[in-house]
């Protein structure tokens, strides 16, 4: 029971975090903030995924989380490198 409620709490927190990230992505004045917000969004999404697996008692969703962690990093670096160098694989 307590786990259910705490899971729901965590769900809500991360979902709200997602919304805040989205807000920042769209309305930030700075590209750095947008990249940052997208990175956070990846991580918050990952958290939601893990929470979902926890709530369902399933391990099926683990790979997705793993991939999100990896790909969030790659895309953040790619976006940042684009700003820094233009060519991201020079």
């Amino acid at each position, binding site marked *: 029971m307590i786990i259910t409620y705490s899971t729901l709490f965590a769900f809500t927190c991360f979902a709200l975090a997602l919304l805040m990230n*989205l807000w920042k992505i769209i309305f930030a004045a700075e590209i750095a903030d*947008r990249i940052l917000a997208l990175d956070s*969004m990846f991580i918050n999404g990952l958290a939601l995924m893990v929470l979902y697996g926890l709530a369902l008692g399933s391990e099926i969703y683990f790979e997705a989380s793993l991939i999100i962690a*990896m790909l969030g990093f790659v895309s953040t670096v790619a976006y940042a490198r684009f700003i820094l160098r233009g060519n991201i694989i020079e």
Partner: protein
Amino acid sequence: MSLFLIAALPFLGAVFPALLIRAGRNASASAAGLTTFLAFVGLLLHAPAVFRGEVIQVGVDWLPGLGLNANFFLDGLGFLFAAMILGIGLLVILYARFYLSREDPMGQFYTYLLLFQGAMVGIVLSDNILLLLVFWELTSLSSFLLIGYWKHLPEGRQGARMALAVTGSGGLAMIGGMMILGNIAGSYDLSVILQHKDMIQASPLYLPALILILLGCFTKSAQFPFHFWLPHAMAAPTPVSAYLHSATMVKAGLFLMARLWPVLAGTPEWFYIVATTGLITMFLGAVIALFKDDLKALLAFSTVSHLGLITMLLGFGTKIAAVTAVFHIINHATFKAALFMSAGIVDHEAHTRDIKRLGGLRHLMPVTATIAIVAALSMAGIPPFNGFLSKEMMLEETVHTLWGGSHYVVPGLALLAALFSAAYSFRFIGHVFLGRTRDDYPAQPHDPGFGMWAGPGLLMMLVVLIGLFSANLAGPLVAVAAGAVIGGADLPYYSLKLWHGLTPALYMSAGAVVGGLVLLKLHAPLMAAWNRAPRPEAKQIFDALMRGLTKLSQLITDGLHNGAITRYAFVMMLFIIGLSYYAYASGTLSLPSRTVQSVGPITVIAWFCLMVATLAVVAKHRQRQLSLVLIGVVGLVVSLGFNYLSAPDLALTQLSVEVVTMVLLLLALNFMPKDSPVESPLWVRLRDGGIAMIAGLGAATLIYMLMLRDFAMPSISEFHLANSYKGGGGTNVVNVILVDFRGYDTFGEIIVLGIAALVIYALTEAVLGTRVRAYLLNRKPDIPQAGDAHPMMMVVATRVMMPLALMVAAYIFFRGHNLPGGGFIAGLIAAIALLMQYMASGFSWASERQRMFYHGTIGSGVLIAAATGLGSWFSGLPFLTSAFGYLHWAPLEEFEWATAALFDLGVFLAVVGAVLLALESLARFAWQPGISSEHAMDINPARDHAAEEAAAEAAAAAAKGEA
């Protein structure tokens, strides 16, 4: 000789002149002459039978399903025409040998001529109207080549195109008419059709068929109002004119009217259309001919007039008129061919054919003058020449013909036509050959060699002989031919002779001759009046029409296909939406059979993120990098959604594909503008938005309604769920479907990837082979670059992250058959792992360290997948049949093996190769001198330190050495 051979000989012969021209002009001409001669002899061999009234028939099936058979038959009419075509053809070949100059490609000429001749022979021998159509259109095409033979003359190609346009369109109309005719009669065989007069004339489709067929005949035979093309065809060399206008091309229409006379003629429709057209043409042609200064133009319009005459006769629909028509066909062929050839000789010798610049030639070229004068007198209807005979018979017929209740219309106009006809004939004689000898010819004319005048000379003999001994000489031929025209019925009474007594026709003839002389006398003032009179110039009208048509076509074509894919796509959407909506609205929809499933707030928040991000992409699409970030959000949420909705494989795939795509787009964006300008006006944006919303609404409604209903029958995927483990050896049903149940799809899919990489590679080669390369080399970055291209921390992190990522790839690969994953995702992750390395230390640095042969990787992936599929052949099983089993090696536990894993390896390799090849291509675009760094990271104090120490040591050593 078989009719097949007769019809085929000219076509076979057409090959030789073009080939033999290298052996000389004589060889070429002889080849042409010989084949024609052979065909002519072959034809004559049938003469006895034909004159006995027999009909020779041969045939084979060609396209029996359609009723198109290669059936030929030879009756009197066919014989007459074939004889004219081949006989005059021979003379033309002879004549042309001497007429054409050295510069003219003679081989081509004879080839075209024989093609044309073959087509004509085909028309007159066909016993199947579809076959006849084949030859009919062939005459249009081959005459196009003949008329345009002198390629350097603009008049040549214009005349050729005009002839093709007019006769071609008539021919197409005729196709329609013939199809109708065949459908009424139930057969396309002429011999059958000719039996069904009543059925055809009673059919409601008789009139359309008649009009369409007549359109073909009239255009071909230059009947009013289609007569205008014929004079322009005079741009052709004179032998061509002689041939086309005496015996062949223009006679084809007459032939067909005669051929179908038994079933089409005799109705009021026939009479009023055909006779009236003929009458008008006859009159008009004669009048215009009088005012032509060009010899060939004069003859051309006289041809028009005489064709009108024959058409009118056929149009009368009476048997005796038909006989007269046949007789005049023969006569006209003889004198007109002789006249054209004479005119050609004049042109050839005097270098002009302008009547105003000619005169008195009888002294300079007596032989030619004799021939031309005799033929012209025949044309004028002067006894005792053959033209007189048929013309008088014609006048006689007009007297008996009522038109719209009037006795006078037909004879009156016919008389006027005869009068003008006499006048232009006299002018031809008088203004060219008679009169004072001139000394201002462009060249000094004299009679040509025998070869050139032999043909017209022979024809002149015929003109005279037929005139004198018509009953004996032409009688039998007229009889069999006319017998064929009137369809086997008994011939009416007629006699072919010069003197019929004092008939109205004689008075009319006399009147015409006198009137003709008067007109000639008055020619100068009449000509002046004619030139003053406004009249439509057919050529200009036609030209304007054609130019207009071409312009209109260009306008339509360019207007529709203006290169704007935005518009193409819009039209496409509109059409798809419209038809889909129609399909939906015209069907029936049952009530939902499933209930909706409720959702929690978290899901709604995720959905909200997706929707907002999507809208933001649209709103911010001009800021390209931002829109890429936003698409990243969309991809992330979609992946989360797939996971939420029980599709972990999809989530993995979607996410990895999205990241790789994003990287490719960023790499491409590096070279492209970073913003899109505002280009479409507001209304366009509203319009596009409107159609987009309708399409979106449609897609949403469709899937919503689909989701609320069950499958009409159980889905085949129940089988997949039930057999995935038993038959495929895997618990991840999606993967088993991909590598086993539907492995063939996956095989196609990796080939798509492989091809994509090949295309990208080829494209890169193509682009970098052009001046784009120089541009790229000199290109300055359009956003300022920061220092430290390869940060130390990134490099160090990658040294651990990349092996870990590869480990993850291996993990995803090996477990895919039973749990989410598989070769494709593993391939993408491996590629992303390498991408990490490229981002850390640069593509050049990394690829110099480890050469990857991307082509080889892709190729081996496809080959492995294919080989795995082929492996099952050895067990006698179909392509891509999988096998699996379990291995036990002590002390390890049981391993599962599956050929599907090998197949998946192919997938893996293809994916890795494809992604990396794309990355490599983009790296090549970006390559600039100095881009490749020597070190993995730009900043490395340890390296500097070591270098300093080494330098210090070296300095110390050097110092020691010095010491």
